[in-house]
């Protein structure tokens, strides 16, 4: 196996003391950056980039990727502790992570998240190792129609699983689409929904919306409920960490399912954010404990975290092999490659195998180091929660406001985040789900571009979405996921002899 030999050479490159030190430093920096919402991995990596100009490319990419791993882990921390996702891809972690922390199980929640994330990342790296030569040619098969099909599957899996009123899910999703529309449209070059505000011409940053909807919205709710914050009761027991790590293998079904979804979404253009949402949605649907999702269910943390990290690792492959970044952070790193004098593209694997395989080897090491380091920080973070709400509340507010400002250094964004905070509060009060809104905001713009590009390519014929086996399969699966609630309703109705009743339900859905 040629890849294996090259990987061993890569380890020889990555395992020098110098490079291991760089990994530790990168992961620590990444953790700090990931914990602060708004700053995030892309910003952190671009701040660090100038430092790498004088380094050799291998050390430089190891530093940047280690920081990326650190930031991905750090992003989950605030999701769980304060309901503020530090990274877009850790939004789905808030759904069960935060309720668990509120129930006084912050240590368990954090440990679960970090351990499953580490496992997810390792799966991703193994997939990269095995499939690197095949992925480039596979990714080439993705045209606009295929892109759209990937996004469609993500949306469909979400609608298909939505609990509660389908009408409310739809309203929430449509509002998300509207928010994603703001700014200059790629296809026509016209500005849309900007109302001639300069600040809106760049569109609404997804991070601003998340900081408002989740962080500030939750804060408003907590205040109304009378300043009680049950995290206070969290017991600080170091042994909990070890016990929780030992507990993770029990969720192997969820782990495998989520890792598969993650790798798939990382290689295709879906990306880590879509992967974590889809994995959460499918977990809720197919897990035996699905009905506990959203109430502090361990599997509800394992599912998105595993998928997020395996997608994050796999997303680096299209960047190296095609020069198409799979995530915002990958885009910054790609910029770095070009400045170091390397050209990402199909030839990189043959022209600079030492670089590519050194990087892949460092991904194994970097993730292991990251897991160990973040587990060590768990007691520290859990300790923060023991502070009374009168201290934690203002602290969250400050973090949110600073986060909103840091995204693009716009004061306007702070007001926008406050507005989203109110929206988030109203949504919660009226029992509208936030997740579809967020998903639509993340993918809406990309899905729209892909759809319109596909329609331009086919001169307006929707047949392009069923024009080859790849795209037909994806669209078919998407439609199946969309109809799943209907099908199960009919099926169950049939079993219990209440077909008419279930049919009526199906029609109303």
């Amino acid at each position, binding site marked *: 196996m040629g890849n294996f030999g090259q990987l061993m050479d890569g380890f020889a490159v990555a395992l020098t003391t110098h490079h291991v030190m760089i990994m530790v430093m990168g992961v620590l920096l990444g953790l700090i950056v990931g914990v602060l919402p708004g700053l995030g991995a*892309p910003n952190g990596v*671009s701040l660090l*980039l*100038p430092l790498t*100009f*004088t380094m050799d490319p291998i050390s430089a990419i190891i530093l940047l990727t280690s920081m990326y791993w650190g930031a991905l882990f750090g992003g989950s921390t605030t999701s769980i502790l304060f309901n503020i996702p530090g990274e877009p891809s850790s939004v789905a972690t808030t759904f069960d992570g935060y309720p668990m922390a509120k129930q006084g199980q912050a240590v368990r929640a954090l440990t679960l998240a970090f351990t499953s994330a580490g496992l997810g990342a390792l799966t991703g790296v193994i997939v990269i190792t095995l499939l690197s030569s095949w992925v480039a040619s596979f*990714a*080439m*098969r*993705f*045209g*606009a129609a295929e892109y759209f099909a990937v996004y469609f599957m993500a949306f469909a899996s979400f609608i298909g699983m939505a609990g509660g009123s389908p009408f409310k899910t739809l309203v929430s999703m449509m509002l998300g689409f509207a928010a994603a529309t703001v*700014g*200059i*449209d*790629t*296809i*026509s*070059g*016209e*500005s849309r929904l900007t109302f*001639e505000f*300069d600040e809106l*011409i*760049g*569109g609404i940053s997804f991070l601003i919306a998340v900081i408002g909807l989740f962080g500030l919205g939750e804060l408003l709710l907590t205040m109304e409920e009378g300043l009680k914050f049950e995290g206070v009761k969290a017991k600080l027991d170091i042994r909990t960490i070890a016990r929780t790590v030992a507990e993770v293998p029990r969720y192997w079904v969820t782990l495998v399912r989520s890792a598969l979804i993650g790798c798939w979404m990382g290689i295709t253009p879906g990306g880590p954010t879509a992967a974590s949402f889809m994995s959460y949605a499918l977990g809720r649907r197919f897990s035996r404990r699905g009905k506990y999702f959203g109430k502090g269910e361990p599997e509800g943390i394992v599912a998105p975290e595993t998928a997020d990290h395996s997608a994050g690792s796999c997303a680096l492959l299209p960047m190296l092999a*095609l*020069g*198409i*970044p799979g995530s*915002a952070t990958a*885009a*910054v790193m*790609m*910029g770095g490659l*070009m*400045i170091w*004098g390397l*050209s*990402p*593209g*199909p*030839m*990189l694997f043959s022209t600079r195998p030492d670089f590519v395989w050194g990087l892949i080897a460092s991904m194994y090491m970097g993730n292991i180091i990251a897991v160990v380091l973040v587990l060590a920080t768990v007691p520290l973070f859990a300790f923060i929660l023991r502070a009374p709400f009168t201290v934690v509340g203002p602290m969250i507010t400050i973090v949110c406001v600073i986060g909103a400002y840091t995204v*693009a*250094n716009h004061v306007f964004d702070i007001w926008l985040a406050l507005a989203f905070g109110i929206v988030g509060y109203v949504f919660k009060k009226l029992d509208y789900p936030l997740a579809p809104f967020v998903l639509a905001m993340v993918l809406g713009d990309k899905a729209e*571009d892909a759809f319109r*590009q596909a329609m*331009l*390519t086919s*001169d307006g014929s929707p047949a392009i979405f069923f024009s080859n086996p790849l795209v037909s399969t994806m669209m078919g699966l998407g439609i199946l996921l969309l109809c799943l609630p209907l099908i199960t309703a009919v099926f169950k109705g049939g079993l219990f002899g209440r077909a008419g009743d279930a049919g009526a339900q199906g029609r109303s859905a």
Partner: protein
Amino acid sequence: MPSHALTAFALTLTVALPGAALAEWQPNRPVEFVAAAGPGGGTDTFARVVQSALSKNELLTTPIIVANKAGGSGAETFIYAKSNKGDPYKLYFGTQDAYVLPLANKLSYSLKDLTPVAALVFDPFILWVNPKASGIEDVKGFIAKAKEAPGQIKLGGAKAKEADETLMTLIERSTGTDLTYIPYKSGSEAAIQVAGGHITANVNNPSESVEQWKAGVQKPLCVFESERLADKTVIADGMSWNDVPTCVEAGINVPSFAQPRTVWAAADIPPEALAYYVELMTKAVATPEFKGYEERGAQIPRMLTGDAFKDFIKKHEASYAEMYKANGWLKAAE
């Protein structure tokens, strides 16, 4: 602070300052480079290459921070420049977008809000196809195919309007063909779509497709320049950039369509600061880092400063305005 102390302080300042102002202007705190593109985009790489050239060769010893303001196809950068009028600690990096964007969109900034510093280099445009997927080997084949099936050739580019779509309309007009433009987020994305056989052709800068060319999934048909590119190093199929015919040679009468890589400052910065930056950029262009960047991208080393740059801007803007008018893209009069 008592008021007399304040007066004394102000006095020392007024005594000390003229001396400082007479001497050459020098930045004494960090300088911000604002790139009118997202990370990884052409303008982003441009700004970061200048950053690395300056700091590696210690031409600028205060820290340089690169920020990306890509919103509104980069308009965000120039609006930001407007709000930082007179601030000599910020430079803005772009292309022709600085003056082309306001043509089609109602934006709150205009060219008056910017001080032109320099155009450091020009990026040529090339017409690419995937020879295997499309069966097109040269410009003749391209035109023949376009005439055979009007509207069936899908040509990809970065963003709507602006350089890439404008260039397509020029190709259409000079060859009497009808092509369909498909906008993508970036030039490299369009290149991958051509390489994968999803669309027929694309136009972009050499650096965005060269790796696909080496891999044999893209082929350059012609370069939109009046002369062939200079580099004779063989890249793929025994061809160098110099072996790519100009489009005029090959049968598309679009003589020159290069994209300047431009540096701007806000309006009303001190003239000494402008002079300082012009000199700084001249030094940056001479560094090995910048030379390497030019070579990798097969760019045309043509630097413009001062009045030459201003003249160029005026002419370039006018030619874009004319093309936009012909395409019906000019923004509605208020």
